[in-house]
């Protein structure tokens, strides 16, 4: 049984069909890289998976939670999948620790004491336990993104969606974030990541999805996709054609 089942998903913005029948099944513990040109629908697909966008056709199910437009379904779905954004989106009025504690306390009604313990564990997991009391604007981009990862992890999601989470970072800060993600992957977290870090995708991912014009154009283990791309479009994407 797959953890994430995406079936015939179509998504339109007005008359512009951005996802044209996406099918993708992700097993628990699988790490998937999504690559493709700008505008191919990578972000839209991720955003659909945790209900930041509605879908026009098809279905998305994550561990029994079905995507639907109402709050009850959305909440159930979002308890199963977390998301990390390119722009970090930490809450600037809260310390790193409070950022991590907030949702468990508010959504899961965890006590402040328990939430704080959990937050310390999660911050330690991303190497930032010493930054518990720092505000986001006192942290580097790489540190902010790691706090964002800790914040998502504190909700104990079954899967994480990562949308170009290192694209807004200075080059020297990319690795500290990728290391954290690599560690999560090694620990068995299910990951769906849109990324331009091809080397990382090749080393860490179980499968690579190449999206082109709103479709899954090619999919396979990184060895196959990177070494012997089958389609012209993928070869063009790699700059080999």
């Amino acid at each position, binding site marked *: 049984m797959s953890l994430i089942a995406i079936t015939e998903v179509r998504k339109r913005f007005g008359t512009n069909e951005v996802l044209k029948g996406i099918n993708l099944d992700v097993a628990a513990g699988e790490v998937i890289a999504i690559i493709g040109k700008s505008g191919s629908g990578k972000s839209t697909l991720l955003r659909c998976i945790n209900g930041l966008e509605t879908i026009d056709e098809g279905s998305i199910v994550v561990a029994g939670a079905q995507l639907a437009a109402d*709050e009850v379904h*959305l909440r159930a779905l*979002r308890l199963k999948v977390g998301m990390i*954004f390119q722009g970090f*989106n930490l*809450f600037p*009025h809260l310390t790193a620790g409070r950022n991590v504690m*907030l949702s468990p306390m*508010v959504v899961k009604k965890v006590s402040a004491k328990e939430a704080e313990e959990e937050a310390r564990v999660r911050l330690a997991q991303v190497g930032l336990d010493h930054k518990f009391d720092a505000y986001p604007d006192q942290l580097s981009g790489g540190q902010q993104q790691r706090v964002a990862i800790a914040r998502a992890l504190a*909700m104990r999601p079954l899967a994480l969606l990562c949308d170009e989470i290192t694209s807004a970072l200075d080059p020297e800060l990319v690795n500290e974030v990728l290391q954290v993600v690599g560690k999560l992957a090694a620990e068995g977290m299910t990951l769906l990541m849109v990324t331009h870090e091809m080397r990382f995708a090749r080393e860490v991912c179980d499968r690579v999805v190449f999206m082109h014009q709103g479709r899954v154009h090619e999919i396979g283990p990184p060895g196959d996709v990177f070494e012997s791309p089958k389609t012209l479009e993928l070869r063009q994407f790699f700059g080999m054609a």
Partner: protein
Amino acid sequence: MTTFTTWDIVRNLLLATQWTILLSLVAFVGGGVAALLALLARTSQNRAARRLAVFYIELFQGTPLLMQLFLFFFGLSLVGVNVPPWLAAALALILWTGAFLAEIWRGCVEAIPRGQWEASSSLAMSYFEQMRHVVLPQALRIAVPPTVGFSVQVVKATALTSIIGFVELSKASTMITNATFQPFVVYGFAALIYFALCWPLSKSSQLLERKLNVAHRNH
């Protein structure tokens, strides 16, 4: 005929000023509550609630406060509800203030980046949880200067309630003028008192704005 010393005039004006201050406070606090409700309705997912909020805001922003005072005072008594001037004045000012504060605050809420909504959504928070814990705390900070600034308008607006017979500073000025025939002295002092009330407010609004801009980095 009794003669009025300048002190008599000032003392009576100051007595009436209490009512101006009280009415301003009531209008501001009540209007704040009305604005918060209107804001939540205005930004909610519920279409009917949004429409109702827009209707309320546009109605009270789009008509003169004077008409609103008349309607509350005379209108309600026409349908058999006898409202004393202070109640009509308070109701009209509360709703008028609420309509303006709601729009000021909506601008502040909309200034919060979309990423904050998306991040809190992806953490499974509901609309009210997002508002309460993520958006409003940030919006509040930018809302303070314009809100304090608007309180000046509220103080000045209370002068209009003299029309329906509520005895605050302006009404008292007219009454004292009628007794003393010294309009320049009376209205001069009244203007000074208004200024003494309003100037600190607008000044602190400016100071707060500067301070919050600087404090943004240091919390």
